């Protein structure tokens, strides 16, 4: 099995131009790696797992909506985007939820979340700024004032 993993990692490095690749378990242990000399496999694996878990937490909800940030085009020019990343970016439109992006891109949950987290971290996208917030109760100005004076008087 490990040999297969090496083949996949080698292929990934060839296709992406990355310097190295590590297959990591969710708790940060290296399963297989192809790294340049001098790189510490354990350290790269632990860092990778930490970044993945951050992505998992930041993009914790399938209902979240993101939009492109104001100067996204400038940032996008400076970073090298892979095809699947372009696909995800294209689907970030201020309307699609994370679940819609996963559905339409046909990519795995993990890849989409990780990509969105990367975009968020480098400022290409941002959380949807809520223009309209919804009150779950038909509150009148008069009633709100009553609540405010009641609380002030407590």
């Amino acid at each position, binding site marked *: 099995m490990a040999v297969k993993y090496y083949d996949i990692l080698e292929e990934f490095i060839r296709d992406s131009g990355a310097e190295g690749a590590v297959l990591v378990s969710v708790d940060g242990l290296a399963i297989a790696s192809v790294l340049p000399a001098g790189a510490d496999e354990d350290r790269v694996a632990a860092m990778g797992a930490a970044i993945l878990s*951050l992505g998992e*937490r*930041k993009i*914790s*909800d*399938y*209902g*979240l*909506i993101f939009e492109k940030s104001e100067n996204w085009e400038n940032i996008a020019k400076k970073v090298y985007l892979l095809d699947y990343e372009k696909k995800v970016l294209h689907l970030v439109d201020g309307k699609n*939820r994370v679940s819609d992006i996963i559905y339409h891109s046909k990519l795995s949950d993990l890849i989409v979340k990780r990509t969105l987290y990367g975009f968020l971290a480098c400022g290409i996208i941002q*959380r949807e*700024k*809520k223009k*309209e*917030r*919804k*009150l*779950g*109760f038909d*509150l*009148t*100005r008069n*009633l*709100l004032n*009553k*609540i*405010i004076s*009641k*609380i*002030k008087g*407590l």
Partner: protein
Amino acid sequence: MAEKKIKIVVSGPYAAGKTQFINTISEIETVKTEAKTTKEGEKEKKDHTTVAMDFGRIKIDDEHTLYLFGTPGQARFDFMWDILGKGMVGLVVLVDSTDPATFHEARRIINYFESRYPAPFVVGCNKQDLKGAWSPEDIRTALDLGEEIKVLPLVATDKENVKRVLLELLDEIGKYI
């Protein structure tokens, strides 16, 4: 006339002080659903924990009553967040300012409510009286919140403090009427 219930939800990570917040302000003795803490890692922090909800009440007039619902903090109770979030007019998210390890969880809770029940919300940075408390501005950065969201200092045992946080939330709610 049937009583009309207005609902504010108080949420936040484990041990952020939600039960205390509601206790401090409620007119009635808070209805608590606390059980003894048994999980390793949780029981070192406190003896009892909320398992369904906390529940405080403030009567507004003959017709209306304001209810404060506190959610259980642990993520395994997130089904309760859903039940409590329905129909709320506003949300208070509390964080323990001395425990940055829980900030990610607070962000998760905000994400949850924002994508389902996008009511106005404020963040209360509790335990500001304790040593090592992060400032509200640092907590804003850690939670990645925009300037438009109020991130307020708080000591949940102090009534004036709790009142101020609720009033700030009501002020936010007023913008959407």
